[in-house]
């Protein structure tokens, strides 16, 4: 929290996103929003509601259902003087825009020897348990994190969401910004009314503890905090560390926490295999091996397409109970 956090209000995660966009639209005329149903509809999630009334249809621009087209257009616009913010309704549609993201936006600066810049933000969503089935439920933040040239942001609180989104819009690099759909309305927290940014590449310790480090991202931060409360009741003190950005990754904060607690679990809603948990676990193992009392453990989404039926879908995502039980086992209690 900033020292001069005047006018702290409770906002939802979605309201914090909207406030960040409104403030940046007001601050910089080069900022434009592009996406499907972003104007009067305010997106399918109503997160942008009200922006077109203040900023008009020249700044909040409805596009055809044409993700590669308008994302590609935004890359070129970013190179030539604009600061576009693109809205990709569902993270699953990252698959549609991957050439524009991975082969164009990410590489323009390097391929041109540093001459062209791409100050572009791609906002998209992640998170299951909305009964939306296999093509509207994935958490694909590991994909862009694999590509050099991109920054990847995964905020978990309203405060972080506002500050990081403003930082992303002011960044001269392409930033992919993942918002958890469930958090939009469900997660509330204090947010300063004024201008502030949260630096990209700095983790945040969401809860201090002594016995085990729970590294958790996005939607899983709330899960880890819930599990930490349960663990406290059985005498285990859990520290919860939120990396906040996948790349750059604040390795120092992660490693320092694990050196203190000597146990580490990584919890992420992306697929368990070849993903975020594997990467973070390897960072911890490489840098804190001799401080560990046991192997780094991981919880991620089950390696299946996200199913529709609630009883099936709920079996694919880590829960507070899963984190609690694994942590107890790791602490031998």
């Amino acid at each position, binding site marked *: 929290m900033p020292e001069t956090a005047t006018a702290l209000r409770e906002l939802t995660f979605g309201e914090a996103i909207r406030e960040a966009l409104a403030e940046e639209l007001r601050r910089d005329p080069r900022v434009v929003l592009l996406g499907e149903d972003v104007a009067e509809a305010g997106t399918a999630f109503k997160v942008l509601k009200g922006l077109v009334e203040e900023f008009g249809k020249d700044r909040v621009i409805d596009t055809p259902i044409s993700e590669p087209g308008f994302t590609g*257009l935004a890359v070129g616009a970013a*190179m030539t003087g604009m600061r576009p913010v693109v809205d990709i309704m569902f993270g699953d549609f990252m698959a549609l825009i991957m050439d524009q993201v991975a082969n164009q936006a990410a590489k323009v*600066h390097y391929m041109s*020897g540093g001459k062209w810049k791409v100050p572009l933000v791609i906002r998209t969503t992640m998170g299951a348990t909305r009964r939306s089935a296999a093509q509207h439920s994935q958490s694909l933040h590991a994909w862009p994190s694999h590509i050099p040239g991109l920054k990847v942001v995964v905020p978990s609180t309203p405060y972080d969401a506002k500050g990081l989104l403003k930082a992303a819009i002011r960044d*001269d690099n392409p930033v992919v910004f993942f918002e958890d759909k469930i958090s939009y309305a469900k997660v509330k927290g204090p947010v300063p009314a004024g201008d502030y940014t949260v630096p990209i590449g700095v983790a945040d310790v969401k809860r201090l503890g002594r016995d085990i480090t729970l590294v958790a991202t996005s939607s899983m931060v709330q899960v880890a905090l819930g599990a930490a409360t349960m663990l406290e009741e059985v005498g285990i003190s859990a520290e919860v560390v939120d990396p906040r950005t996948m790349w750059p990754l604040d390795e120092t904060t992660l490693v320092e926490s694990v050196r203190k607690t000597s146990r580490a679990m990584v919890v992420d809603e992306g697929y368990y295999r070849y993903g975020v948990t594997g990467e973070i676990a390897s960072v911890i193992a490489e840098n804190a091996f001799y401080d560990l009392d046991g192997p780094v453990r991981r919880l991620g989404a089950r390696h299946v397409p996200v199913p529709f039926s609630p009883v099936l879908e709920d079996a694919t995502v880590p829960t507070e109970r899963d984190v609690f039980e694994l942590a107890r086992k790791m602490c031998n209690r």
Partner: protein
Amino acid sequence: MTTATRQAAAGLDVETLLRMYRQMAAIRLFEERVSDLYTRALMPGLAHLYIGEEAVAVGICEALRPDDYLTSTHRGHGHCLAKGAAPHLMFAELLGKEAGYCKGKGGSMHIADPATGNLGANAIVGGGAGIATGAAFSSKWLGTGRVAVCFFGEGALGQGVLYETMNLAQLWKLPVIYACENNLYNEYTHCSETTAGDMLARPAALGIAAERVDGQDVREVHAAASAIVERARRGEGPGFLLLDTYRYRGHHVGDVAREYYRPKQEEQRWMSERDPIALHGDWLVSEGLADRAALERIQSEVASEMDAAVEFAVKAPYPDPSTVDEDVYA
């Protein structure tokens, strides 16, 4: 409008006509040296030569302002040179040298140069469509009056993102020109095997002003480009040029045995009857605007410039390996 009146309207003075000859010769002689460097194993990677298609790049770029934008392709040397790139910095980039346009990080397929409006050559077929359309979006939004030209080959007609961005450009009346260079071959496959229907029907379906142009006639290309570029600059929307041309060489320098996909006689016919430099030179002489000696003088001047440019690049140092991590992030 007839060809003659349109050429007159485009304001082709002798100076411009001779400069177009020189620019086409420069591209041809540049590419011949690329081929030479490549076959002598001095150039790493791949070399996709533009020889035979020079009138397209020159005719269009001569119709542009210095601050207009372009996106180019894997076969992009001609576009970059026609827009004003310096040959010695191009050669240096092709050889992976520090002095090159991209500090050796881009190579032949990624020449980029903000000073000449070059948004970058792109090695994904159709990869420039989004970027060029986005540059046109900025131009309209910022009111700069700049036009963006998206060069691509007829192979890109198979890529969906091209039509997605053409749709956006027409909806929002963006000043972008889609310049389709139909050299007949998608790599090693004739376009008749890959492209259904009439190529011009595609932009027409979106209501985009489109025209088929003889891509071997630099004056005709220039006239058509001038009209459609100025129309876009006036805010009347995007344009599409379908330019009939021919790739004299293989898909890349190593593509030598190519009779399985196109006959030698076809290549010979284009080279002997439809060569853009010879056609323009003959016309200049027949109109009394230049004599043979003057044209030869241009050729030898350009050859000397290119030899000096190659020498600069060959002698230039490679980048320090420690620079590999630089320029990943701005």
